[in-house]
């Protein structure tokens, strides 16, 4: 299946993966294609605005990722979106207010999108190996993203920074300390793990995401 193919009967039911230029773009796209979703990768303002739902992917460091968004003038556009927006891994962290993952660029905290009021800091693994890499269990709340997902389900994580547990926590996990496996506020939410690499559980979460934003066109 190619990016151009339209497998959904409803051509307006478009999922757009924002082209941040980061490395895991194709993995995320392939995962949606396995679910027969109508998905494109784009940095085009009109395409992103027209989407039923938007994915913000990301790997690497917060500083580099925010620079990439700035270069493509995407920051204000993302902030203005009213449809469901899901960040994945670093994409989730970019929804937060700031990150102290400097990546050697400076001593300054990295200013993020500020859409979910929480701050990203180092994961305190209490002596366990870092990065936190592999399959870990999540406990989930009532968010529609986790419909049908049982507490204790395993998903795939790779990260060294995390959002702390807060009122914006949608799912949690534990590695040394407890941390947010998912955060969200209003139409913006994100997952720290990689649903595109989390076998059946991940596919269910992505399928749940595809159910969101189906009735959004009238409210645009």
């Amino acid at each position, binding site marked *: 299946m190619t990016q151009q193919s339209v497998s959904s009967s409803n051509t307006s039911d478009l999922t757009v993966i924002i082209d941040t230029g980061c*490395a*895991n*773009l*194709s*993995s995320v796209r*392939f*995962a949606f*294609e*396995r679910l027969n979703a109508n998905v494109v990768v784009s940095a085009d303002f009109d395409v992103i605005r027209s989407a039923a739902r938007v994915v913000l992917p990301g*790997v*690497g*460091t917060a500083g580099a990722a925010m620079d990439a968004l700035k270069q493509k003038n995407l920051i204000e556009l993302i902030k203005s979106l009213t449809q469901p927006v899901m960040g994945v891994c670093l994409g989730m962290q970019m929804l937060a207010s700031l990150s102290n993952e400097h*990546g*050697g660029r400076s001593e300054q905290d990295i200013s993020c999108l500020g859409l979910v009021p929480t701050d990203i800091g180092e994961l305190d693994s209490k002596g*366990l*190996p*870092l*990065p*936190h*890499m*592999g*399959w*870990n*269990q999540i406990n989930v709340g009532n968010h529609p993203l986790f419909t049908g997902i049982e507490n204790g389900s*395993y998903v*795939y994580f*790779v*990260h*060294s920074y995390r959002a702390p547990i807060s009122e914006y926590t949608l799912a949690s996990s*534990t*590695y040394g300390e407890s941390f947010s496996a998912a955060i969200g506020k209003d139409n913006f939410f994100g997952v720290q793990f*990689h649903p*595109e*690499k*989390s*076998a*059946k559980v*991940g*596919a269910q979460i992505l399928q749940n995401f595809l159910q969101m934003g189906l009735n959004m066109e009238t409210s645009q």
Partner: protein
Amino acid sequence: MLAKRIVPCLDVREGKVVKGVQFRNHEIVGDIVPLAARYADEGADELVFYDITASAHDRVIDKSWVSRVAEQIDIPFCVAGGIKTIEQAREKLAFGADKISINSPALTDPSLISRLQDEFGRQCIVIGIDSYYDAETDSYKVKQFTGDEAATKDTQWYTQDWVEEVQKRGCGEIVLNVMNQDGVRGGYDIKQLSMVRAICDVPLIASGGAGTMEHFKDVFELAKVDAALAASVFHKGIIDIGELKQYLHANHIAIRL
């Protein structure tokens, strides 16, 4: 709780999965994508693909299969073999690999590790180490270019020193492959892996020697590694991944079922 990972390794040569004993006499096991999909279905937690010809023959791997694997399987996978530059690494990652593993080129130019880490983050930089026990000096040492017997050579690195060095330079994970026991299926080298575990702050994958389900239990319980890699026992159907995971779960090891 973080699950211990079971990682089938597929040695790739000219687009086919192969397996040799003690890194020699490679025989074809099967096609890449169907084998990868089968292992994912059976419950593999991750896959590693080593193009064993690449480093030794100074040739870049044919990457079209990387994309085909990424399209079809929904678990993480790592690609290794002849990655010497940032651009070669970027290409594998862009095709859908989750991690890249560097072995011989890192020994030739250790600065490659830090340059890759600066560019992509340490989470996708895996260092493969081929270590062997040198009876003459009663020490563990690192070999280079093990993909080709004629090109294989000793290095000046003691295993412990190289493990420290690659972490300092920013790797995100280490695969320790113990040469003496590879393919012999006599069990993982618990002594050596425990020694490396004690100085390894990043995730550690044990490789080489798996022959029975008990060997997996031992390496998780005794050497406390994060993941166990094996090839021939899975390719030859000696151990079924689903049964292995049930066995480990019954033995109170954290496993994703």
